[in-house]
């Protein structure tokens, strides 16, 4: 018996050797690993979002506001005790959607699931009142955006939206919570990083059921930077009013800095719809709307600029000494070339016209003659020098600016596989045919003409003077054009009488972009021509230059010019009020 007891001793010792090695393995070999795991158990890092920077217009009027909005959340560890059909009823979504949301977001027993965002106060009250029936359901407050002017200026301001799956890997977004709102459109997106600020951090100690026990460390969030835009919301309001139900765009630029004073595209959309997280059906409705409210017509609508383009061959003619003020052409209402006949918009003809009269009355025949003498390459050269046929470089996310088109011989051969005809030069000279331009390009051209030949990259930031490039044109040539443009509005026979203003002297140039060939009997709106008008003011010392484009607006003088006048008046009215404010 004693032998057996002694043998037991060795068995005990063997077990202790095993325990020794196991302790060594757990505490020394894997000690660091387990230490980290125990810290991870205990500590939670909670991001506290920074208040987003406010966006102001050039007069300091806030365009957005941070407002709280409410989401209903669910603690996953209470999931078993919840009747999903009753909960779906309470928060007003389908049970299948609710289960889907829970399944998709369920990652850990400690991270709450977001069931619905953007609750109304009534919904919050209803949920809070029945809280005791639904353990683990609670209302979370987040900060969202309220766009104070709704549709007005929405294409510039943009909106916030959830991080999309393809964005989640972007370096600067990795740090953000999965359901954070970031700028998805417009300035909100362009300056997202600046506006966002630095989220704060709270490191808390929690127990096994995720209850917060104490704060270990807290880093306060840093508020995002405020952004002062160059746009004037009052001009936007005036534009929206004067467009009425028509679609189109208006871009106004401060001529000596390149600041964009207004950039409106109509119809617009309400960014507040997106701020709460747009529903799929709303999104489809916006995308498929035949009026295309999400299309930024100021940057993306490229159409033949019509007669507004004539200032380009006019400058080319002066610079290349093809014409001088005495050069005249006789307009009989049309110009025959070979078997083709190129008509002037005025069937009776303009008679003998010089450059000034040709611009004022927008005589097409004069520009056919001028184009013939210049040749397409010269027109192409000057159009390019003024920034046509290329992007202006204004950045708006996710809008891709169109570059327009200025044709020449090689372009046609390459893209149309056809030789260049003189007739192509004729219709290019009056801004029809292949020539395409966007409203922002035409506004920038106008600004360059009236500011002495400087071309700026347009900017949406207030009081930021952009670098400029001097176009190699004589001051004198530009003055001639300016004078003619003043005549378009103010002289007898001018095509833009609708732009005459009582408060400020305006110069401009009308244009019409033909939709279909002049067939008779087509009167429906969708067959009407697009109206253009470029303008600047005051004539004596230009400050603002703009381009108006009205889809299916008809004649430029009748429809587009009054809109330009309203916008210019709104700008000077605002300036006057600001001056009065300062004098007071």
């Amino acid at each position, binding site marked *: 018996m004693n032998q057996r007891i002694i043998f037991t001793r060795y068995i005990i*010792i063997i077990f202790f050797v095993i*325990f020794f090695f196991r302790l060594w393995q757990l505490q020394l070999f894997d000690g660091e690993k387990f230490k980290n795991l125990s810290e991870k158990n205990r500590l939670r890092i909670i991001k506290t979002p920074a208040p987003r920077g406010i966006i102001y217009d050039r007069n300091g009027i806030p365009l957005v506001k941070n407002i709280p909005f409410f989401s209903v959340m669910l603690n996953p560890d209470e999931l078993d005790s919840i009747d999903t059909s009753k909960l779906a009823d309470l928060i007003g979504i389908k049970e299948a959607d609710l289960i889907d949301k829970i399944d998709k977001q369920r990652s850990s027993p400690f991270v709450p699931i977001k069931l619905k965002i953007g609750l109304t106060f009534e919904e919050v009250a209803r949920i809070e009142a029945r809280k005791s029936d639904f353990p683990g359901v609670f209302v979370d407050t987040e900060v969202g955006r309220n766009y104070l002017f709704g549709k007005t200026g929405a294409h510039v301001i943009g909106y916030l939206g959830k991080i999309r799956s393809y964005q989640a890997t972007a370096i600067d977004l990795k740090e953000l919570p999965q359901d954070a709102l970031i700028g998805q459109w417009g300035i909100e997106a362009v300056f997202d990083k600046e506006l966002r600020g630095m989220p704060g951090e709270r490191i808390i100690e929690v*127990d096994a059921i995720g209850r917060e026990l104490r704060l270990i460390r807290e880093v306060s969030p840093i508020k995002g930077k405020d952004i002062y835009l160059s746009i004037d919301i009052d001009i936007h309001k005036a534009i929206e009013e004067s467009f009425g139900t028509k679609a189109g765009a208006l871009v106004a630029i401060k001529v000596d800095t390149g600041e964009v004073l207004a950039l409106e595209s109509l119809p617009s959309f309400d960014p507040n719809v997106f701020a709460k997280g747009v529903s799929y059906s709303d999104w489809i409705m916006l995308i498929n709307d035949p009026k295309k409210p999400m299309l930024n017509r100021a940057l993306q609508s490229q159409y033949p600029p019509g007669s507004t383009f004539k200032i380009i061959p006019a400058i080319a003619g002066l610079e290349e000494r093809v014409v001088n003020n005495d050069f005249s052409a006789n307009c009989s209402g049309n110009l025959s070339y070979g078997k083709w006949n190129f008509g002037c918009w005025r069937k009776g003809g303009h008679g003998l016209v010089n450059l000034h009269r040709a611009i004022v009355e927008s005589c097409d025949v004069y520009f056919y003659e001028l184009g013939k003498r210049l040749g397409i390459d010269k027109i192409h050269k000057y159009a390019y020098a003024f920034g046509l046929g290329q992007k202006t470089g204004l950045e708006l996310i996710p809008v891709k600016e169109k570059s327009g088109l200025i044709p020449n011989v090689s372009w046609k051969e390459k893209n149309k596989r056809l030789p260049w005809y003189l007739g192509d030069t004729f219709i290019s000279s009056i801004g029809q045919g292949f020539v395409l331009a966007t409203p922002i390009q035409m506004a920038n051209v106008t600004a360059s003409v009236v500011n002495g030949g400087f071309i700026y990259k347009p900017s949406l930031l207030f009081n930021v003077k952009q670098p400029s490039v001097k176009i190699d044109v004589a001051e004198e040539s530009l003055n001639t054009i300016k004078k003619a443009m003043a005549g378009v509005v103010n002289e007898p026979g001018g095509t833009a009488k609708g732009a005459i203003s009582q408060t400020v002297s305006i110069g401009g140039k009308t244009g019409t972009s033909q939709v279909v060939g002049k067939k008779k009997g087509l009167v429906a709106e969708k067959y009407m021509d697009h109206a253009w008008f470029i303008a600047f003011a005051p004539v004596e010392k230009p400050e603002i230059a703009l381009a108006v484009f009205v889809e299916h607006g008809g004649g430029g003088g009748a429809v587009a010019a009054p809109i330009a006048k309203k916008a210019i008046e709104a700008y000077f009215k605002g300036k006057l009020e600001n001056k009065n404010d300062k004098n007071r």
Partner: protein
Amino acid sequence: MIKIDRRLIKYFDFITFSLVISLSIIGILTIYSATRPPVESMNHPDFFLKQILWLVASLCCLVLMVLFDYMWIQRFSLYLYIAGMLMLVLVLIIGKSAMGAQRWIEIGPLTFQPSEFFRLIFIISYSAYLTTLREPLSHKTYLKSALLFALLPLILLFKQPDLGTTILFLCIFITLSLIKGINKKFITAALIISIISVPFLGNIVWDKLKDYQKNRLTAFISPDEDIAGIGYHINQSKITIGSGGLTGKGYMKGTQGPLRFLPEKHTDFIFAVYAEEFGFIGSIILVFIYLILFLRGLDTALKAKDEFGRLVATGITAMFFFYFTVNIGMAMGIMPVVGVPLPFVSYGGTALLSNYIAVGILINIRTRRYELFYP
């Protein structure tokens, strides 16, 4: 007044005594740390106070157990056995159930677990029975003893159900049988039969297990499969022990227990809490105390004056050893999660009391190791 023989003090086993006292002190300190509230403003639960009171009572029992010759225990072993079996039946009838098990009897403010005492009675009565046998266990005597001392009480225990205690009983039963010695022919036959019957019996036993018991066993086999579910206990226990590192996080600095990541922190998983705060060095010291205790127990068995003493001392030492091994093996993730306490350290009054009575018997055997000693 009981007359205390001077030899009683002279031969008193102070080593065993001081080993278990130090284990109890470590236990109370660790219970205090493990049950401290996670936030200062909350009240500290009084588990440690209760444990101190139980320790005082246990010490009294220990002294009482040393005062008389253990031969008296041998004489009353049959009555003890009957009384123990009655308690086990009683607990099934009037017992209080908690967590799916019916193990406790309530007497006034105290709850006590009859199985904790029955393990001692079992060792005593089986040893007494084995002492009556002149020869090693043959199939005849073995079957008789198996029926009386293994099958009957085990069925009652299994019915409670108390899986941990059942398994430990089986281990003690086998140990004592082996120490007594088994007929060689019979042991070979028994081995072959048991190996063949394991799959069948295993199936029957598996079906009878409660869900939580099945979970514990499957979690032991693959703890990483469901970290938030069954494997949670094992994983958290390993994290708790491992995070102690070499020197530990320091007394009252452990986080796993008070923040409730570790379940059963002051009972079954108390070793993890201790290891987290005192690290590898502390754990080795604790394990070493147990090692000395066990070796001392075997030494007592070797030195005992009679076979009964030898068997009882071995049985008690084996009992402590099995409890210790299953408990810290479970905490370290090398044995299934079977809820047994760590002797002398885990919170639990009945267990402490019965362990001290057992130690008292152990000391009694050592103190009276010389035949002539008869106070």
